[in-house]
């Protein structure tokens, strides 16, 4: 069912963090998109804890997902929070989760999702956050898919911590702060490009991505330059 070549590609890409221009936000965007493709998700997102031990959204495949992730944080309930607290993966059909998440369930349902999954990003004693994967189709992941979801989360966690080891002086708090601050800069840059060129936010994001690729810089660096030049 899952293409083996695609699977191998995802693992190699997620393990490849030993590079000079590693960018946490880019990396987590990749994790979200690869997971969606491999596990047949409609949307995916990643949350990480910050230095105040609060979960923050670092990646979202689309606006609808972002809205539902925000809703989880506001309601302080939902699959991502459960996966983070229990350090175990969560797989649920929304039709059966009204009692478990009275606030989250109707809101996710209204957004068009039927099945919600969350896989903790954990290694030994540390829990960094969780990977969310939502489906519009009413089908729970089979055991193989569930294992694959957790495996993707695991390899991404190792990648993140490995990156930490690469720069000995940096510690996790600094890395997460960097990721969250980059996410803010990327969203600011999207807004600037959208306004400056009269385009929508998705196109603005594609433009940022293309610039990063064409000039061989990270998405975060390009975003900072755009914000510095006020979208010019």
């Amino acid at each position, binding site marked *: 069912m899952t293409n083996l070549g695609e699977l191998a590609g995802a693992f190699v890409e997620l393990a490849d963090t030993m590079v000079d221009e590693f960018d946490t936000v880019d990396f987590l965007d990749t994790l979200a998109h690869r997971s969606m493709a491999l596990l047949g998700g409609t949307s995916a997102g990643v949350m990480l804890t*910050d230095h*105040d031990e609060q979960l923050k959204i670092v990646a979202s495949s689309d606006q609808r997902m972002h809205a539902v992730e925000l809703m989880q944080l506001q309601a302080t309930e939902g699959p991502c929070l459960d996966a983070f607290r229990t350090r175990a993966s969560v797989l649920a059909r929304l039709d059966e989760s009204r009692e478990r998440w009275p606030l989250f369930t109707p809101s996710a349902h209204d957004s068009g999702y039927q099945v919600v999954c969350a896989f903790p990003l954990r290694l030994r004693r540390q829990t960094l956050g969780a990977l969310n994967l939502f489906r519009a189709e009413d089908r729970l992941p089979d055991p193989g898919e569930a294992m694959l979801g957790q495996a993707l989360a695991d390899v991404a966690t190792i990648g993140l911590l490995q990156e930490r080891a690469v720069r000995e002086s940096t510690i996790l708090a600094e890395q997460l702060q960097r990721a969250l*601050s980059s996410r803010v800069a990327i969203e600011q840059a999207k*807004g*600037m490009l959208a306004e400056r060129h009269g385009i929508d936010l998705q196109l603005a994001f594609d433009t940022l991505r293309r610039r990063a690729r064409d000039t061989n810089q990270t998405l975060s660096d390009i975003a900072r330059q755009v914000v*510095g030049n*006020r979208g010019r």
Partner: protein
Amino acid sequence: MPIDRRQQVVDALRGVDGAWGAPETLASRLCDFCLERVRARGAAVSVLSNHDVVAVIASSGNLVADFVEAQSRYQSGPSIEAARSGVAVLEPDLAGRGLLRWPRLVTDPAASRVAGAYAFPLAYGAVSIGLLDLVTGRDDRELSADQVALALTVSEVAFEGLLWLQSGRANDDLSPTIASSGEQSWVIHQAAGMVAVQLDVAVTDALQALRDEASARRRTVGDLAEAVVSRQFSFAESGA
């Protein structure tokens, strides 16, 4: 517990009357807090313009003030990098790894009594308005992960305070912090980017403009941001 910590920082940085005070007052409270609670040897707060250190507005003493001043002179060092990049630059081992990164600075007498340097931008995404510098001395241990985490919280709260002060609204309530979960919607950041172009100002000023407009219209910042992003409201048209 962690939320309490943020509240504790807010309480410590605001005066007994709940006001932020003048920028210098806030900055010196910030330094005191970092010495007492983060347990740094030295602390300094600078204001920035165009990514450059403009002035040190408060410091705990010469150790840190001389160190920041030397960085300004060489245009090199952790504070300069943090100011330019908008992300924290932490170097617990200045004489070791730091020597490779900033050779002239580290061999300057001003750096001789500094063991570790920790520079935290007071920033909103890509734009910094100030800088919090912490240093450890020769006999100190390096800052732990918990101490660094506390310093990050302090720098977030200090950013909020400084931004309010820059807009001349010292006694306003602390608005919902950008960092708090209720206000972490990406829409606000996207709107700040759009408003920055509409008004031709920095994103920090755009954020403040959004807040002012929202409070004038008795709407939440998130609501107004949605209207900006969906192009139902523009600062360019309103002449605001």
